């Protein structure tokens, strides 16, 4: 139930509001309201209720893991996660979605929601890597190989962020790539390498990490030209500011850093 969609979150929020408004005594069984919490809650504190986190799709694995940790640390909290493209999430926050925390895959998308968030912090970054089928049939060794018209290459379409990043690294390296297909998103780009349809693809380090042994990963120095910074911030109108604060603390803690690193993110 924890990962119910927004409808679930709205229902829960309404239910909580009704509970609070009716003041029918704060000791509802599983969802103590604010006044009762101070004396009823466990070892930790005033962090209770619902926490709604909007996060970039690339953060799904990491945030799902951290949500489990968070609910163990704060038994009174129900975490609802919503993953989508950062730009779409920023639009929803601007449109007044009842959100506590926003985490984006780029500084520019966080900037879109600047008026609705408090002090964004960089907590991780993602760079491009080369992935080839596990047996590397094209014997690809570095970015320069992408100029070879005889081999087959896939990169993201320039309309999506990973494609914009790819364009940047090729420009920085002074390479005109002999691309065979511009895939519609990073997952499709990765899958072309996994299935062996192309000799190499450019994807995010986290996607390469997630693909495990199905691909061979090659890093290249020019990737530093296109680093996507992940930013996180509490919403200015967060319905549950204390839980938002606690979530930020977890993500920025050593524990959060360990989960991020394991998933292939770089730390600031």
């Amino acid at each position, binding site marked *: 139930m924890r990962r119910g969609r927004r409808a679930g979150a709205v229902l829960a929020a309404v239910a909580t509001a009704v509970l609070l408004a009716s003041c029918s005594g704060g000791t509802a069984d599983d969802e103590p309201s604010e006044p009762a919490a101070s004396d009823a809650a466990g070892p930790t504190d005033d962090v209770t209720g619902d926490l709604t986190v909007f996060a970039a799709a690339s953060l799904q694995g990491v945030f799902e893991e951290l949500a489990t940790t968070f609910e163990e640390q704060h038994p009174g909290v129900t975490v609802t996660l919503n993953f989508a493209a950062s730009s779409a999430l920023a639009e929803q926050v601007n449109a007044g979605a009842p959100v506590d925390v926003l985490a984006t895959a780029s500084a520019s998308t966080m900037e879109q929601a600047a008026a609705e968030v408090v002090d964004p912090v960089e907590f991780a970054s993602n760079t491009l890597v080369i992935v080839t089928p596990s047996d590397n049939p094209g014997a690809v060794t570095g970015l320069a190989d992408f100029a070879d018209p005889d081999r*087959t290459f*896939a990169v993201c*379409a320039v*309309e999506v962020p990973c494609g914009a990043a790819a364009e940047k690294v090729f420009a920085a390296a002074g390479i005109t790539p002999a691309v065979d*297909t*511009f*895939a519609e998103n990073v997952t499709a780009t990765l899958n072309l390498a996994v*299935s062996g349809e192309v000799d190499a693809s450019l994807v995010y380090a986290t996607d390469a990490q997630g693909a495990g042994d199905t691909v061979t990963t090659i890093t290249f120095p020019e990737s530093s030209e296109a680093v996507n910074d992940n930013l996180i911030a509490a919403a200015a109108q967060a319905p549950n500011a204390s839980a938002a604060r606690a979530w930020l603390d977890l993500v920025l803690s050593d524990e959060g850093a360990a989960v991020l690193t394991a998933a292939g993110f770089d730390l600031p």
Partner: protein
Amino acid sequence: MTAAQGGRRPGQRARSGRPPLVLLVPGLAALIFLALPLLALLVRAPWSDLVEIVATGPVAQALWLSLRTATTATLVSLVLGVPLAWLLARGRLPGGGVVRALVTLPMVLPPVVGGVALLSLLGRRGLLGEHLDAWFGITIPFTTSAVVLAQTFVSLPFLVLSVDGALRGLDRRYEDVSATLGASRWTTFRRVTLPMVAPAVGAGAVLCFARALGEFGATITFAGNFPGTTRTMPIAIYLAMEQSPQAAIALSIVLVAISALVLILLRSRWLTALGSTT
């Protein structure tokens, strides 16, 4: 679909009076349901920037590619589909029902899955593609041929089912007479059967072309996306959506307009011409 039009009866039934409400109301509702979303698209369209968006080179390139590949896919479908329809309707195939279901499958399959199926067969590591690559050095994905293959895969069933339906509705006596007069089966097909089902062939080809023109999922999965080679209009529209929904709407309007134009032209000229020669 236009079935056999042979025994058209004179209008002895009273044509006067209103259409019954039981038919009129749901019929109009269906029309509104189909037309309103398109109307909304027109209302939302960035008319002032339309020319500017559409006149750019990449759009013309995608449109030209779409028209070329959809036309080729329709021709391929005609050459292969009419014989298949004949086999289904006249060939006394063992397990004809199963074969007919098989032909229908690409229509209900999500097109993306169709693309994956084509990759499984013709991809570089596909069942057949592996050998094509090893023996002849031919790789099909990411080429314009792959676009035509993907479009043919999803649109061929429309033609086959249309012609198959017409053949089965046909009065067999004409063919029987032709046979008793000594015509071979091929002559009978060419001189008797084909002219009688020509309207259905035309209608099937139109549906086939329209489906090929709008094809997205199988194309991007199997053929990929490269300007001028594999980026058809639907793919250009999908990618434009990532950056500018307004541009995507503008491109959609162009595609809708072209499709409508082609369908109207084909219906009014070619189809009726074909129909009247029978």
